[in-house]
């Protein structure tokens, strides 16, 4: 479903993503872990076609994001970091725009919107401008936008950042309920979240893959048996060396 091959991106002298290769299949929920600046967001921007890689390829359901961009983007639902939206619009208008831009009209657009709204619990705020909504609701508007067209591949950049425990639980339930039919990549800092909802986790550091496995098998690699200890040992030693 999602194949990443030797992906590399440099910004001036800094290499943000360094020859990253990764393949994610249907039904997998991949936790994409790494310290700030490790290249998680840059990788997600390249997967979705917002940034062009310096080298390497991304294929989404067989479509190359570089040469077959639109057909790949049709299959992707993307929640960018910080869940940007058009603040002056209400969620109803905003989701209407996304539906139109994705080529959904009439009854199909309404059905897609109703389903996305029901999944994200937005009913109460549908007619309030997005910029007046709380952080949690804004994040959910971003999620609703990402799942609106029932995409095969979901790329979620910190979907639970800034949510309260109840909202986090709702997002986890949502992801769990749709996971079987989809390929989902989630970047997060919350390691307990990975254990709660991901079937697989990768850790990247300085743009390169340093660990790949089920959350349980990764946790077992640390002497303490805890995922965050492994995370620290893999990503902080180089920091000291630098």
């Amino acid at each position, binding site marked *: 479903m999602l194949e990443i091959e030797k992906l590399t991106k440099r910004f001036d002298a800094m290499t943000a993503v360094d020859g990253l290769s990764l393949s994610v299949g249907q039904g997998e929920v991949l936790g994409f872990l790494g310290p700030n600046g490790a290249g998680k967001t840059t990788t997600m921007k390249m997967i*979705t076609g*917002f940034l062009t890689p310096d080298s390497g390829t991304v294929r989404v359901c067989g479509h190359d994001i570089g040469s077959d961009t*639109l*057909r790949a983007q049709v299959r992707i639902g993307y929640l960018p970091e910080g869940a940007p*939206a058009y603040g002056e*619009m209400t969620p109803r208008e905003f989701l209407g725009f996304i539906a139109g831009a994705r080529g959904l009209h009439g009854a199909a657009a309404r059905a897609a919107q109703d389903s996305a709204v029901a999944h994200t619990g937005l009913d109460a705020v549908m007619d309030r401008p997005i910029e007046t909504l709380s952080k949690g609701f804004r994040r959910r508007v971003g999620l609703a936008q990402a799942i609106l067209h029932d995409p095969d591949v979901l790329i979620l950049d910190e979907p639970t950042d800034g949510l309260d425990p109840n909202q986090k639980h709702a997002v986890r339930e949502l992801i769990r309920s749709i996971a079987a039919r989809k390929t989902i990549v989630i970047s997060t800092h919350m390691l307990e979240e990975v254990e709660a909802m991901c079937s697989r986790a990768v850790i990247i550091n300085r743009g390169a893959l340093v660990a790949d496995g089920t959350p349980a098998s990764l946790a077992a690699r640390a002497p303490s048996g805890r995922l965050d200890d492994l995370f620290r040992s893999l990503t902080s030693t180089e920091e000291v060396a630098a």
Partner: protein
Amino acid sequence: MSAMGAVFRREFSAYFATPIAFVFLIIFLFSIGIFTFYIGNFYNNGAADLSVFFGFHPWLYLFLIPALAMRLWAEEKRSGSIELLLTLPLPVWATVLGKFLAAWVFAGLALALTFPVWITVNYLGHPDNGVIVASYLGSVTLVVCFLFTVAGASAVMDAFQGWAPPALVEVVSSFSFLTHFTAITAGVIDLRDAIFFFSVIGLFLYANMLIIDLTKSG
């Protein structure tokens, strides 16, 4: 096409979501009125035409059109929504064209709201309405090309006139929006003027697409 329509509708309604649309319309209509009736001495001219009115359009556009156009991409970048927009399955041309058309139609709306001037001149005399229609068409096309208006200002032409060969003066003035606009306000829609305006529009929309592609490579 429907993708372009979605971008167009969102962009057009965004003007009305904030006071910017009303502020723009009020400033535009007030200033065009003041320029025409007080500075241009419309009543004292004793002529039933709108040449004074249209003569001020390029100068107003110079200040007012940037207010409409500059937010089209700047707002997307500021709020981060550009990341959303560029990862939707929309061809870049559809996004660029949809945004451009929204600004253009909005400016066209502002222009349409100047209709009392047209009623006034018809009430007072018998103007050539064909010329007025052509001038409106020219003005709405000029909206797009406002930026280079200055290149044809007489001061620039005078500076060339003194020493440059006449052929060069001719070439520079043929690039001027004002020259082409004045030709249209005289009531003549020349194919050359039309081609000129539409090539400028095409050129700048293409440049816009290239710049959007450049932002993708970081």
